[in-house]
Each structure stands twice: as C-alpha cells, then as structure tokens.
C-alpha cells in the first residue's frame, strides 16, 4: 500500500484473516435477516442444505457446529493467489503466526518469541510442531512464505530481507525503522507455507534478475491453485482440526490428537457449515454451537445458545463527504451536515438491521476504545464536540456562518444555489435504513437529497467518486491500531496521492491544508498549522516509536475532528453466542481471547472444551 511501510501489499489481504469471520460476514450474521445475507448473496455461495437435524452425534462423535466461510470445493489454498483463496477457512485450519488483540497488542499462540531490535525482528519457532503429514515446521517454511511475499511485492514491500538463523529461528529485516508493535503486526495474518508446494516459485524468484522476470513469475504464481483436496490429502495444514469429509455444504474435521494445542480440549470434532441463507434457521433450531447474536435477541431462549462474548470490535461505518461538491467544500456546511446527522437514530436503525452498534460520540476518525491508548483524555477533552442527536439549531448556526440563507424552507448558498446532495448507499437493510434516517433529517432541515442505494457491485461504483456523500466501512485492517483507521484508502480516510503536494484528492480534499495550531479551536487564528494528511497517513505505519505513532495520530485525529473529511456515525461491537450447556471456554487461556471472533479462535486453538458441570 504505502511505500516504505511494513504493511506490505500482501499483508493487507491476509491480515484480514485474523478478523474472524470478518467484516462482511460479521454483519450479515448479526443481521436478523435471511434475505439480507451479503455473504449469502455474494461470492460465498448459497448455503447448500443446512437445516433440520442437528449435526451432533449422527456418526457417533460429538461435534462442535458452526458456520464460517465458503464451501471447501469453491476455494483454493494458494495464499499468493487472492482469487478464490479460502481465507477464513485457511485461518482456522492452520496455526497462525500472530493475532491482533483488542488492547492493541500483537501476540502469538504459536511462536515462542518475537523480539525486535532496531530494524530487525526475530521469530523463534517451537520445536516439534508438525504439519498433518508429519513434516516438522522449521525456519525454512517461514522463510519460504516470507520471501515469496517479499518478491511478489518487490517494489513496495518494507522488508529488506529474511534470513534463516537456525532451524527454528528466522529474522526479518525492515528497510526502515518501525515501531515494535507494527513490526509484530506485520505477522498478523501472515502465512508460512510448506516448501514442497512453493519452493519452486521461490527459486524462480531468486533467479529472476529484472522486474519483468519477477512479474512473469508472479503471473505464474497467481494462476497456481491448490485445491482443498490436494491441500488436505497432502496434509499441508497445521491446525488442531483436520478435515476428513467435506462437500458443498459443510466440512467435518477431527481433532489431531498429538497436536500441541490439543492438550486442553476434548472436543473430538467440528462441523463447519458454509455461510448461506440457512445460518439463521440453524441457529434458531439449536443446530449451531456458536452463532451471531444481538443483545436484544429473544430467540436464544429456546436453544442452548447464550451470549458468550462481546468485544469492542474494530469496525466502524462512515459517510465520506465529497469536497468536490461546492457546498461540502465549505467547512461550515460540513459541520452543519454533521450537526444534523442523527447518529443516535442511525445507530438505532442499524441495530434494527442486526448490527450491534453504538453512535460515535466524538469524531476522531478512530474507534473510541483506542482513544485512551493513542490520544489520551487530555487531548480528546479539547476536541470539538458535535451533536450526536440531530440538532437543527446548531446546524442552522453553521449554515449561517457559511453565509447560507433559508428561503422557503430550503437552504440557499450565497451564490443563490439551493443546497442538495446525492447520497450513495448500499441497498442492504443495515445501510439503507440508517441512510434513510440521515437523508430524512437533511430534508427536514431544508436540504434536498437524492439517495441511491445499490447492490453488491457497490465498491466499483463507490470508486467512481460520483457521490456527494457516500457510505463505506471505516477500518482498513483487522487491527486495533490507528493505521487501520487512517489508511489512505476508502476503508480508512482517502486523501490522495501522498507524493503530491498540490491540488486535491479524489474527494476534493486539498493535499496540503491548514488546521488551527490549537487543538479544539473551531477556527484558524493566526497562521495555523500546515499539514499534508495523505503523507501523514502514509508515514504513520513507518513510525519509529510508539510516541511517534501517537504524535501523528493526534495530528490526524485533530484534522479529522476539525475538517470532517468523513463522518464516522457508528462503531460496532461483536457479539457471539455459544452453546454454554455443552461447551465452555477453557479459563485463563494465554494469550487471552480478546481477539476478533474469540469463540472460533478459541475452538481452533484448543481453548474450548466440553462442559464438565
């Protein structure tokens, strides 16, 4: 993504894997619908079957039932080929190198140690861990994965080199200094690979002398697919559960008895259903042992399910304000929009559609749970507080400050133009309902709107930037870290080309802009502070120290708060239910399960056992 960043291109795709069932899957599951189903409608297949009788015990084993990912026959297992890569499923069928935790740390359940020193990070592999086929996991395996990834992103990667120190130790050297947390975070979602499958490609890369030659290796690599059958039969996985049978609807996996992670569990098998229209029905008829749930749900009473975990998830949702619109180019108009936006009502609407969301209280661009860590109370106390409920008086004041006048109920610009906006949103209930609440509030205030709600090809349309206000997620990677929120793309805060200093980005944000030097002041007094937000967000991941991360984050948060390039209207919580009658989470597991999708993570790392009481 950004040059000189440890966030290599490859990483960002894979990092998502940590997110548990992930952004979209999470929201559908939470959603109360059977028709909504983003994943059900989307690529993830159509939920073959799946209904009726419980999977438990029909073949004599007690299986833990859950719904995740796509059907095995539809995915492939070459992580370097993003097309149809079975991300979710790979994440659970293999031990992971490191996970992001809700407290902002990065920890590993597999590596013995991750130590950082200057530009170097050293990883120690525990001895005696094997693939399903019995081959031991060694430094070479990590090295192969890391190096292919480095070659694949040769020009953009921040990895200078990788080195096998000994059979169980690998060292990664970065091109520039990076803070320790972000060095470790580079492992999140990273995969190591069995050399049997990939060493050939690594050799070709090593032989390639020019960019063209590397490209042609990459072209070959991204056409290489590893079917589920080849992958599983070859025993190339490393996880606690190994699939034995599967079809388009589900897969059955058995506990690998001598796996080091299998010590504290006695759950002999899991049954994983592919995401589909039937997920909800299965949860309701007590087939599932882990399900999406909403705190208001009442249907769980009839089942063994109970809400087991709620975490302040990293995901938020926002409306991008397009400054190319002549009205939105005006700071006071943006603030009026902010004041009129009914965050509470929109959050309530999102909850009706199945999200477990809360309105954003303070516009910092970050999720509130990391304010303390990266901004501090002293700082957040100073920021401008915009109304959370729709406040037409405050909004009218902002409009008047911008020299707009109200004529016959509608707001008119000083040039005599009536204010009207087109709003781009998704047709899914979870977005369409909050958007309606927003648009209605604007209409009542005297601003005309035209809402366009479109379906699954949403992202393509979004990137035409032909909207005045456009909905999109707010978080670019599955990590509780400012880099996830201030990444320079539409999942974060898209500004523009960080190399440029003149002109504006796609949404009309000037690449060089001035904000008040004093945090919290609503206007620029004196010369102010000149910043280049695109460059700042580009530099953020390459910060050398935590203090530097904080510094840059504060500047960006202040800019976000002051200029409103977007409005983050809700932040989400992740609520998951588990069959607590039959299962329990092993207490005091280390590292703790404050990760995304804790129940699945726990299950596939041997931290869930049969309920003994």
């Amino acid at each position: 993504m950004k040059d000189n960043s440890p966030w290599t291109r490859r990483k960002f795709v894979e990092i998502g894997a940590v997110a548990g069932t992930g952004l979209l899957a999470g929201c559908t599951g939470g959603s109360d619908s059977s028709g909504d189903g983003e994943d059900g409608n989307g690529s993830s297949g159509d939920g073959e079957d799946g209904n009726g009788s419980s999977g438990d015990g029909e073949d004599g084993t007690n299986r833990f039932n859950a719904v995740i990912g796509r059907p095995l026959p539809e995915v492939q297992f070459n992580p370097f080929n993003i097309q149809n890569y079975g991300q979710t499923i790979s994440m659970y069928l293999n031990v992971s190198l490191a996970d992001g935790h809700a407290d902002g740390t990065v920890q590993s359940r597999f590596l013995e140690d991750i130590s950082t020193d200057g530009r170097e990070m050293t990883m120690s592999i525990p001895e005696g861990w094997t693939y399903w086929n019995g081959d031991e996991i060694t430094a070479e395996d990590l090295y192969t994965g890391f190096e292919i990834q480095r070659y694949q992103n040769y020009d953009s990667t921040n990895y200078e080199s990788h080195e096998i120190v000994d059979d169980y130790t690998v060292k990664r050297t970065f091109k520039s200094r990076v803070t320790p947390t972000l060095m470790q975070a580079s492992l999140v979602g990273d995969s190591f690979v069995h050399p049997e499958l990939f060493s050939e490609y690594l050799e070709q890369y090593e032989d390639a002398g020019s960019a063209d030659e590397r490209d042609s290796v990459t072209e070959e690599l991204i056409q290489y697919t590893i079917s589920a059958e080849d992958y599983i039969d070859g025993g190339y996985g490393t996880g606690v559960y190994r699939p034995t049978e599967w079809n388009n609807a589900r897969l059955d996996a058995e506990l690998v008895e001598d796996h080091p992670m299998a010590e504290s569990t006695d759950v002999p098998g899991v049954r994983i259903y592919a995401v589909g229209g039937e997920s909800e029905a299965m949860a309701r008829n007590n087939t599932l042992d882990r399900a999406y749930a909403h705190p208001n749900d009442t249907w769980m009473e009839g089942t063994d399910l109970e809400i087991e975990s709620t975490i302040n998830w990293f995901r938020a949702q926002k409306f991008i304000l397009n400054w190319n619109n002549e009205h939105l180019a005006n700071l006071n108009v943006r603030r009026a929009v902010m004041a009129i936006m009914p965050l509470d009502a929109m959050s309530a609407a999102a909850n009706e559609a199945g999200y477990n969301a809360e309105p954003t209280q303070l516009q910092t661009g970050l999720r509130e749970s990391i304010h303390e860590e990266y901004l501090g109370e002293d700082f957040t106390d100073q920021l401008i507080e915009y109304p959370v409920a729709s406040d037409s008086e405050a909004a009218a004041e902002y409009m008047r400050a911008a020299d707009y006048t109200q004529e016959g109920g509608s707001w008119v610009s000083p040039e005599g133009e009536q204010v009207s906006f087109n709003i781009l949103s998704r047709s899914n209930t979870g977005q369409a309902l909050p958007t309606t609440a927003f648009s209605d509030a604007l209409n009542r205030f005297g601003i005309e709107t035209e809402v366009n709600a479109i379906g699954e090809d949403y992202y393509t349309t979004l990137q035409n930037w032909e909207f005045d206000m456009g909905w999109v997620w707010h978080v670019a990677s599955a990590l509780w870290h400012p880099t996830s929120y201030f990444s320079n793309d539409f999942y974060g805060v898209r500004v523009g080309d960080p190399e440029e200093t003149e002109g504006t980005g796609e949404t009309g944000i000037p690449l060089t802009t001035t904000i008040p030097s004093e945090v919290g002041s609503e206007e620029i007094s004196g010369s102010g502070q000149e910043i280049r937000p695109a460059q700042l967000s580009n530099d953020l991941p390459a910060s050398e120290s935590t203090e530097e991360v904080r510094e840059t984050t504060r500047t960006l948060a202040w800019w976000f708060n002051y200029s409103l390039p977007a409005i983050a209207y809700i932040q989400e919580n992740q609520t998951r239910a588990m069959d607590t009658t039959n299962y329990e989470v092993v207490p005091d597991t280390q590292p703790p399960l404050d990760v995304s999708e804790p129940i699945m993570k726990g299950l596939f790392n041997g931290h869930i056992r049969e309920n003994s009481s």
Partner: protein
Amino acid sequence: MSDSEGDTQSELEALFEPQGTVESLTRWERVKQQYDLYVRAPLKVAINDWRTVVGLGLLILFGLAGTVGVWFTAAPSSGQAPFLLGPFENWAYPLGTDVLGRPIHTQLIHATPAMFQMILGGAGLAIGLATVVGLLSGFLRDTVVDRVLMTIADVVITIPGLPLVMVLVAVFQPRNPYVVGVLLGLDAWPALARQIRSQVLSIREEHYVEASRIMGLRIWTILRRDLLGQLTPYIAINAALAARGIIFGSVGLYFIGVLPFNALNWGVMMNMAYASGALNETAKLHWLLWPMLTIFLLSVSFVLLSQGLDSVFNVRLRARHAQTAGEGDTSASKGEHDNA
C-alpha cells in the same frame, strides 16, 4: 372469458344493434350511433359486470392515492412517529409505522406514482411494440419482414423474462421508473404481437372474400375501418395483463435487491421488512404485510378489469358479427379470445 350475467346478455346485445338503416342517418344520428356503440353500450355492459366495477373502482382509488393522495399526505419522514407502531393502534397512523417511525400508509401512497410510471412505461412499450409488430406482420404476411419479426418474437418468448431483465438491469442500472418499466415490458410484447397478427390475418380473410364479392372496396380501407374495433379488445385486455406483469416483475426485482433504488417503493419496503426479520418478529410483521396486500389489490384490479373488459368485448363482438358477417359466421375469430 366467462359471461357471468347470462340473463341480461341478450338485452345487452341489443344495445349494439344499429338503430336504423345506414342510408337514412343524419350526421348527428351517426355520431350518436357511434357513441352508443363505442361508449354507452360498453359502459352499460361494464356496469353490469361486478368485475369491471370493482376493478375499475380499485384502480381509481389507486389513481387517486397516486395523485391527490400524494398532495394531501406529507411524505414519510423517519422519526415523525413512534417506532414500530402496530396497525390500528393510533389513528394518525392507521397502518402502523416501521422501524424508523415512518407511517406505513404514507409510504404506500408515496410509492404509488412510481409504480404507475413503471406500468405506463412497461405496458405502453409492450402494447406499442406488439401493435406495430403485429400489424406489420399481419399486413406483410409471408414477406421477409413478417418472417423476421415473428422470428424475433419467438426468440424473445423463448428467453426467460426475469433473467434477461436482470442482465439488462445490470447493464443499464435504471433508476427512472419509466425506464425500469420499459425494461420489464421488453419481455411482454411477443404474445400479443402474435395475437394481433393473426387477428389481422383473420380480418383480412373474412373481408377479402366478402369485400371483393359484394362491394368491391379496397382491402386496405376495410382493414383500416375494422382494425380499431377489432383490435381494441386485445389491446385493452393485454394492457391490463401486461400491467399486472410489470407490477409482479418490478416488485420482485426490488424485493430481491437487484434493482438500485432511490425512492419509496413497495418492493423495497418488503425487502427492508423481510431483511429486518419481519417473518420472525411479530412487531415487524405488518411492515411486510401491508405492501404485500397493496400489491395484491392493485393486481386484482387489473385482473378484474381485464376479465371485465373481455366480457364487454365478447358481447360486442358477438353483436357486430351478427350484424356484419351474417348468421353462423362467428367462429372465425372467436377462438383467439381465450388466449388473452
């Protein structure tokens, strides 16, 4: 199709009988005769058939809702009423409200104009295209034009409608209701075109013999004179049925979320209600049921209208045939009706 009031039939048929001989009519009388034949009599038949009355009545109600209703009710706005009010709980919101506190009844009313625009666009296109193609094909029977047109019609009949429309929607991303209607109507014209064509052929057949034998009139003159009267039934009945098709198709596509939307729509209402779990939560059920009922009622009005019209025209056709074609010559074109 069916003639429900058998007893009144002969009486009604009498209405269609011309009152005097052709020669002695004054201009005024002729106008009056035409009026009787084309306006008064059909109306009388129509009024005597409950289907026409109910169908037309409903349709007028919908029409009023879509015009006057939109003027008299405020556009629904979220937060204007309590959330998820049940039906008949508060008479300011007789049908209840949705999760955003928008009254259901004003949502239904304000979605009506767009529905009629779709119907106009779709039925208009289907009928227009069918008429043009049917007439052309009929006149130019067995020419290249005829073959080509009929082949196209066959191809279109064969391609399943909704999948094709879905692809078209993906290509054009229509938001204008007329355009949505037109896309849906693209699939509806071939059957009617074929009927019109065979109708033209049978008129030609019928009159060719007669005309050349008796009056020596040019066939084109006769065709022109008879076409209007003979084809109106098909066009009217099929317009009503096409309207039903457009309603089904558009609501269905909005319901499954294939069509992009930017305004209130019954299908979108159903989609939102369904996706928010209306089937599982009693408190939300009315949000789904009212639009369903509305769609049903509008369709009923068109179906009843088409059946009512059919009986009106049946009576009239019988009368006309009796008069123009003489005894026992009525079977020639009759069979076609039932395909409507």
